[in-house]
């Protein structure tokens, strides 16, 4: 391995920009946390306190007992996100398998159309979808929201799982079928265990998609009790509550926490899934 001699200017550039990027990245997150532990009075102090001088948990406790049913939003978000994960994984595995292993007409066209559906703005679909949901009695239902969330996580999932199945040698499956497995058994017993990383990545993205989605719960539910966190929070922190900064930041942190936990636990799958499609080594 050939290496350059260390140059002072280069080292300064590297460490300088790393430091700036770290501060730029972390400061807003720190600010969210710090504000969420301040009393509502301290938030309005000028200049603002970096560390809360009277740290308090009242904002977090307030979330549970306030006028807005934040715990209910949290429950709705969690339930719909989990159901979306399950539905997306099942549908994407079926479709991904067929698109990878079976030969049939319009296969390539289906693959490309699936990808294109991801590119359209969600807003355009909302009005017709709303009218459809009214007719189908899906308004204000978990099922309606889960179907909507799934449609957005699905294209990515199908491509992801198709890619992973592509990389499993067909011989492995054929061997199992020679040994007496049916095609579906071979898939379940032989292929599935080999594509676990793809399935986990698909699940993570489905969870994040559902958890972060604002537009579907904003329009496809009109009962407060059915809102998920993003839509519920937009409603909760408007009007007279718009300057309840510490409460807003506490709710924000609660909303961010599950995402952070998933990220810390499953970082490897996430990064693999994100870059796998676009970078060929």
């Amino acid at each position, binding site marked *: 391995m050939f290496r350059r001699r260390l140059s002072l200017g280069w080292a300064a550039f590297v460490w300088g920009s790393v430091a700036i990027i770290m501060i730029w990245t972390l400061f807003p997150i720190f600010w969210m946390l710090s504000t969420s532990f301040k009393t509502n009075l301290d938030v309005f102090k000028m200049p603002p306190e970096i560390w809360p001088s009277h740290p308090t948990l009242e904002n977090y406790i307030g979330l549970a007992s306030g006028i807005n049913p934040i715990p209910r939003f949290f429950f709705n978000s969690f339930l719909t996100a989990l159901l979306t994960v399950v539905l997306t994984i099942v549908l994407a595995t079926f479709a991904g398998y067929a698109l990878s292993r079976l030969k049939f007409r319009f296969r390539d066209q289906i693959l490309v159309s699936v990808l294109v559906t991801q590119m359209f703005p969600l807003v355009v679909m*909302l009005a017709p979808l709303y009218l459809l949901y009214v007719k189908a009695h899906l308004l204000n239902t978990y099922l309606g929201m889960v179907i909507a969330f799934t449609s957005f996580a699905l294209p990515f999932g199908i491509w992801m799982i198709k890619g992973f199945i592509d990389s499993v040698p067909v011989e492995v499956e054929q061997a199992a079928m020679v040994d007496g497995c049916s095609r579906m058994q071979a898939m379940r017993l032989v292929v599935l265990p080999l594509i676990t990383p793809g399935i986990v990545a698909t699940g993570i993205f489905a969870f994040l998609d559902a958890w972060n989605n604002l537009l579907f719960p904003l329009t496809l539910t009109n009962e407060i009790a059915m809102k998920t*966190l993003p839509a519920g929070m937009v409603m909760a922190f408007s009007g007279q509550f718009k300057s309840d900064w510490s409460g807003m930041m506490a709710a924000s942190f609660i909303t961010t926490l599950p995402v952070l936990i998933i990220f810390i636990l499953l970082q490897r799958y996430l990064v693999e899934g994100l870059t796998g499609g676009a970078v060929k080594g």
Partner: protein
Amino acid sequence: MANRLKSQDKPRGMRKILIPLHVKLIFPSVFVLGLVILYPLVSSLVLSLFNYELTRPDEMKLSVLKNYGMMIDDDVFWLSLKNTLVFTGVSVGVSLIVGLIGAITLDQLPKRLAGLRGVILVPWLIPGVIVGFLFMLIFDVQVGVANVILERAGIIKTFLPWLMDDQLAEIAVIIANIWNQVPFYILMFTAGLKAIPAETKEAAIVEGAGRWQEFVHVTLPHLRGILIITSLLMVIRNFNNFPLIYTMTGGGPVYSTTTFVIYIYRLAFEQFNIGYASAVGVVWCLVLLGLSSLYIKVLTKQDSL
């Protein structure tokens, strides 16, 4: 083929109910995508030809080109186009440069600090609504810390009403957006850097190339594909970015941060003018269709290399 041969062995009556395996496997996905995406898109196309207001559903009249004609004289339509282009152009441009510098410098860090790269990703994971709230607080005129920092640094003399001024609001929204998405660029470029063969880099060093020459002649050409793909993908994503702007400014003050997606939403759900909202939506979909076919072309070309 195999399926068809097998099905001929069965008695005639059975053949009708035999659904090919691939149809069974694909149908559920196609059904969901058809219901939530395809049907509404087609329906939008139809609605865009009608004079349809949600408040007066009985007065739905066919007026084929009225909605499309309206756009030409609609100042807000052109303002949203400008806003969308500025928002996307500046966000993607700045993020590309910051992301590239970030990826290259983070790549130089010793192995034991590799965890920092994970930390850098966090802003990208935070829901758009929360990013909106967070920067609404940071840029608030009363309690916002942005004003305090800028004043201490001597850049501004008096506190600025960031979210209440047309141009400042645009800047604030773009800054929040860049904070949110730079991690994604860093991630993509880091993956691209890893794919540069070590021999190529060594050859450049042996031949006495400096850091800058290495960057221009080795790093950039290798990253070309990923730079194009990332930019295209992020242009499409930013064209469709809703939650961040909606929470931070709601498209205001007045229409100054209203991008196309925000305008479509406001037309449909604040003014209940479904027909016109659909027409604007259709135009926007055509633009995105063009962009995404370009994206897919580049992506598949890259694959075959």
